[in-house]
């Protein structure tokens, strides 16, 4: 990564760390969830990188969430163990699902991933033992490290920042590596990639598994702060939010989805705070934003940024 970008990243993190203590309590919560959602959205981009839009991503977050909740509450594992195990559980389940799912393409893959995800979610609802059914699992233990009180927002924000930053670094390195290049190749022209020996099935699976690993970790992070995990946190409605973040932000580059989730979260909170709009209308606004984005801004916000930059460049010549 270039020095300029590195400085920007450090500045952003520093900004978050210094500003958040001054925010109102509810906004500190929002900040934590925003940081976690950044991981959700960047890990989703890895999955879509091979050209397939899946609807199972948020359910994988739930798999990680439930795994960590159950391991820590029922089996007594400390958070520091249950969280990576949560990622591995999500990775494992998605690895199994690769076999049926990647025999489908495009529209069928979308529906198939939706069906598989919904089936898993319904299992959480139906099997009250051990998943707790509709009310889920509560009293999920807070992480323990010395006498840091992770019940408080600021310590948990630091924790989330550390975990998410490390994850983003790894994801970024993957993308910049030849593995990432191969994923992009599969995305742009799968038959050409195959003609030079790329096993596209293997790479699609790799993207799904690694993406699921990281969103599983995000799931664990989320529910250990909330203290409760329910099936309704991981329904198709939430999955659509992820889609909206990625589409509005753009997904051609690493940073596009991050722009999407940040801008839309700020927009969402701004809308709520201004009181101009009844919160019940929010989903309709999201729907309109999504439609507008597809029709008028197909490259997303990052695409707009690219256009501005090349306009500025041509103005300077």
């Amino acid at each position: 990564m270039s020095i300029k970008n590195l400085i920007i990243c450090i500045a952003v993190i520093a900004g978050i760390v210094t500003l958040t203590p001054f925010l109102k309590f509810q906004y500190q919560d929002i900040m934590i969830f925003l940081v976690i959602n950044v991981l959700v959205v960047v890990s989703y981009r890895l999955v879509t990188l091979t050209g397939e839009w899946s609807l199972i991503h948020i359910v994988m977050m739930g798999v990680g969430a439930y795994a960590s909740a159950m391991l820590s509450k029922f089996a007594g594992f400390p958070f520091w163990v249950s969280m990576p195990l949560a990622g591995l559980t999500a990775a494992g389940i998605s690895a199994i699902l690769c076999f049926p799912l990647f025999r489908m393409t495009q529209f069928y893959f979308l529906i198939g991933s939706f069906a598989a995800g919904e089936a898993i979610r319904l299992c959480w609802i139906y099997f009250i033992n051990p998943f707790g059914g509709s009310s889920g699992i509560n009293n999920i233990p807070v992480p323990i490290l010395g006498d840091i009180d992770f019940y408080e927002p600021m310590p948990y924000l630091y924790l989330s920042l550390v975990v998410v930053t490390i994850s983003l670094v790894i994801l970024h390195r993957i993308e910049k590596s030849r593995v990432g290049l191969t994923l992009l190749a599969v995305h742009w022209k799968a038959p050409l990639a195959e003609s030079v020996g790329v096993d596209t099935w293997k790479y699609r699976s790799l993207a799904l598994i690694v993406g699921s690993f990281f969103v599983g970790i995000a799931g664990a992070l989320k529910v250990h702060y909330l203290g409760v995990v329910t099936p309704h946190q991981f329904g198709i409605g939430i999955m659509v939010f992820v889609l909206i973040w990625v589409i509005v932000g753009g997904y051609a580059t690493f940073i596009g989805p991050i722009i999407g989730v940040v801008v839309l979260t700020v927009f969402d909170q701004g809308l709520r705070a201004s009181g101009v709009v009844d919160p019940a209308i929010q989903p309709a606004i999201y729907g309109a934003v999504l439609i507008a984005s597809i029709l008028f801004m197909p490259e997303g916000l990052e695409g707009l940024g690219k256009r501005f930059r090349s306009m500025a460049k041509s103005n300077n010549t």
Partner: protein
Amino acid sequence: MELFLQSIVNSIIQGGFFALWAVGLVLIFGVMGVVNFAHGELVMVGAYTVWLLHSQNDVPFLLAVPIAIIIAMMIGLLMERFLFRPNRTDPLAGLICSIGVLFILQVVAHEVGGTGPAKQVAPPFSEIIVIGDFLRIPSQRLFSLAVALSALGVLWYFLTQSKLGWALRAVALDREASALQGININRISMIAIGVGAGMAGLAGALMAPLQNLTPHMGHNVIITAFIVTIVGGVGSLSGAVAAAFIYAAFHTFVTTYFNGTIATILGLLIMVVVLIIKPTGIMGVKVSE
């Protein structure tokens, strides 16, 4: 034994609804190549229209139903014109736009209906037909089944006997070739979505007196429609109708003897299995990708 017979009756009635749900989705996907994720919401719109007109404003039921169909049709036509047509080259974009419509319609329903418990529409036909000692068929359900089957019959006649119907099927089979033959793709797309949305609206209108209405009632519809469509064959209407009744029987019996959630889980798993083994379904013809 009584339970068994009652379940059969329920299956048939449920099958009529499932068929109406699925047929609309198949028409739109088959002719236009796009998946309308807001299909369940079109059903919901039909139901809410009947609630608004008949329950809240004393419009006769038999008038409210056609109005519901027309309103659903209009929404479908708007979607075709402004969302699906500009995105014809990228069906995924159209799909995502339909998700946007899904949200908007849910909020509209929420605003129209206000907060509070689920809405209910008193059935205009309230007799219960009793056969033998134990078989109870509410006449409202019988009415719904009759109307559903009639609608499916009319659709079948339209598609197989009319020139327009043949044009629809031609476009579903090969859009480019049809265009080269002079078929107006825009007009055919509009007809397809008009009919598909109209079917959805009709289904919703018929459902209104039979269940609680909530803004989220479309969720169940779209899941069922997907399962039925995939199992029956993505391009095939007759497959969808057959699958609708088979799945209705499956779902009814599993719900009666076990549990509704398990029934849906199993249904989804069956759909995944069909997707793996034969994505074109039981009777499907391969739709050109």
